[in-house]
């Protein structure tokens, strides 16, 4: 059965957990006895029952009545299976909301009809667009508190649409609901006779799962190169997950940025029939006709297709979640595809805050802020524009030991020339030397592993 990842976002207390709890209950997706046992627990503790309790399973959350992390909930409609991610709306937990949302293919954004557009309604809208989630429906909740008024609904719809337009998002899907009363979730309700659009379940079923595109050029970030000498296995296997396109035995491949090349000798796999080709989303391994030494993180492309872009500078939209602000010229780690390198913030073009009052001339990007920035990387990296290739056009920034920010590449800039001119005459020689000594090391280790295998386990 088909499966889709959906994230539910919106300001704290606007009813996200209630919506999911109610959806689970009304579609019979709960384990037997769960609803009754939660109701019973509320009775025993003399607390009113909340559908949110079905999700907020952590003891901490039940005490405080807020969602701390993005729970994954499994749920099924007649059409397909869903993983629903309940994202916390509280600003303190923005990183959790983003972790949840980054796995999603579509989103619902909840707004409280009575309270109206709140800070995180805007911030979440902006983050969804930064994360590249294009399928978004706006759900106006707690319509019961405004007497199911069409006027109130339309007013909110106009206000929020205007905000979305400033982000370049066009969303015409707005659904008036009451999560607690179950209005317009599964079936149309007589409470809103003026509403003729889809219900929440109908809109979920109408979202498309992000499809594999057959025509894209082959790309595979090289995750690792294996040589397991045990049982006299002498295959040198180049492994990774295909991010787009197709690769066949016999194809000539080029590694970027190292520009090494060879031909695919075999496709390797365990417990499958022999494979002669692989495609997008598969976790694969292949051997080459010649033994070349390449580094983890290189991007593999086909010689007969387009090449990825290679540079050490780019412009990006970024959101920052780190406890410490993102500062100019300080070393951070970037992870993109399977590559890692040291990265420096070269310029902050503007900071976009929750209210879209863009600010220029900021010295740093603070926690929970988004910004348009220019980065300079220590090494050359293969990359793509996010608009053209999502998986190779997005990256994370690590500060000390934790992921502290993420972003999407909007423009690949000319290489950082300072460094290049300084070392260009010797640069290539240096690279070759480095790789040939690494080659030697690699071979040496292979020999050692082969003859003294027990030392290596």
């Amino acid at each position, binding site marked *: 059965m088909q499966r889709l990842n959906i994230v539910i976002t919106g300001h704290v207390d606007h009813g996200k957990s209630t919506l999911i709890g109610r959806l689970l209950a009304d579609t019979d997706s709960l384990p037997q006895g769960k609803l009754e046992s939660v109701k019973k627990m509320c009775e025993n503790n003399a607390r009113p029952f909340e559908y949110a309790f079905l999700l907020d399973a952590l003891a901490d959350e039940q005490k405080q009545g807020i969602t701390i992390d993005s729970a994954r909930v499994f749920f099924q409609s007649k059409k397909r299976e869903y993983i629903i991610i309940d994202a916390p709306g509280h600003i303190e937990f923005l990183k959790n909301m983003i972790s949840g949302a980054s796995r999603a293919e579509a989103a619902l954004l909840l707004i409280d009809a009575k309270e109206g557009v709140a800070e995180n309604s805007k911030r979440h809208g902006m983050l969804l667009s930064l994360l590249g989630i294009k399928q978004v429906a706006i759900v106006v909740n707690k319509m019961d508190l405004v007497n199911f008024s069409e006027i109130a609904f339309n007013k909110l719809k106009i206000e929020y649409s205007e905000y979305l337009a400033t982000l370049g998002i066009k969303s015409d899907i707005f659904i008036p609901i009451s999560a607690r009363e179950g209005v317009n979730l599964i079936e149309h309700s007589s409470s809103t006779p003026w509403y003729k659009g889809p219900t929440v379940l109908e809109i979920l079923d109408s979202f498309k799962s992000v499809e594999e595109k057959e025509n894209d050029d082959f790309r595979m970030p090289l995750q690792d190169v294996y040589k397991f000498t045990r049982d006299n296995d002498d295959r040198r296997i180049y492994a990774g997950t295909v991010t787009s396109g197709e690769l066949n035995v016999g194809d000539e491949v080029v590694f970027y940025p190292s520009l090494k090349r060879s031909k695919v000798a075999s496709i390797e796999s365990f417990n499958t029939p022999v494979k002669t080709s692989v495609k997008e989303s598969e976790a694969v*391994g292949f051997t080459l006709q010649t033994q070349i030494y390449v580094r983890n993180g290189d991007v593999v492309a086909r010689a007969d297709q387009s090449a990825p872009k290679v540079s050490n500078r780019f412009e990006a939209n970024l959101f920052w979640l780190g406890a410490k602000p993102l500062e100019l010229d300080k070393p951070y780690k970037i992870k993109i595809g399977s590559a890692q390198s040291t990265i420096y913030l070269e310029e902050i073009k503007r900071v976009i805050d929750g209210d879209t009052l863009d600010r220029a001339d900021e010295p740093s990007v603070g926690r929970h802020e988004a910004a348009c920035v220019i980065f300079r990387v220590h090494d050359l990296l293969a990359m793509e524009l996010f608009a053209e290739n999502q998986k190779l056009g997005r990256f994370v920034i690590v500060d000390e030991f934790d992921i502290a920010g993420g972003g999407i590449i909007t423009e690949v800039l000319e290489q950082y020339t300072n460094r290049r001119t300084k070392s260009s005459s010797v640069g290539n020689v240096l690279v070759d030397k480095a790789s040939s000594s690494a080659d030697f090391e690699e071979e040496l280790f292979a020999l050692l592993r082969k003859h003294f295998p027990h030392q290596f386990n």
Partner: protein
Amino acid sequence: MDHLDRLEAQSIYILREAYRSFPNLAMLWSIGKDSTVLLWLTRKAFFGHVPYPLVHIDTAFKIPEMIKYRDEIAVQWDLNLVVGQNKEALAKGETFVNGLDRLSCCKKLKSDALKYTLDGTWARRKWNPYKKVWEDELNGAPYTGVIVGVRADEEGSRSKERVFSARDEKSEWDASTQPPELWNQYKTDFAPGTHVRIHPLLEWTELNIWEYIERENIPIISLYFNNGNGKRYRSLGCFPCTAPVDSEARNPKEIIEELTSGKFKDIAERSGRAQDKDGGGTLEALRKEGYM
């Protein structure tokens, strides 16, 4: 690609990411279906090889067939098996069968044994697949990455886990301060003294596990099947606290039927485990202290 291909590919990616990021990596193998699927996925990811040790915590109260099965597979698949045990608690008789309450027993025989086996404080018993003998390892190096087969659909607090989840010096897990995890990028950097738990099966459901076992024909332990007495285990643990369920299912296919349309539709998997039922939030309390 169908849904099993997708789950498989994602789990393989995670295993490879763990393998290249953690110099001292191990995988927990409880002998149960989930971690045996993980073991199978490891062989998929590394083209038939299992390039890290498998840690099994032997409470001494495991159903005897489990130990037999474990040792047979270890020989067949050339595994580096590492066994940890709380010898002191067993010697002193600090166990549920000797009157200790269930949670304290779990803590001693599982959580503590796990913690001190992983960090190398306690001796590890190791199966040497080359010499085919058991050896004792004293003062072993701590494992900095530990692969664990938990699934998000098992129980509330597990649904909030990250794929790469940091544990501090005390092996504790704090759901509210977890760093973000974006797209396919995970936490692969860690401070000295901490270790990272890696969860490649988070998005699998119990049903997916059985579908995959059937598709790949994975030699799963036979306790999961009705071998003639009309009973089978749905979840494996220690014999004093885990009861078999009544079932006629004799193979993965029949289990899948049972889960989708039969008697176990909508009944939680861990319903046979006694320690989950002692009031709300107890499993979370155990998890905070490092329980799987």
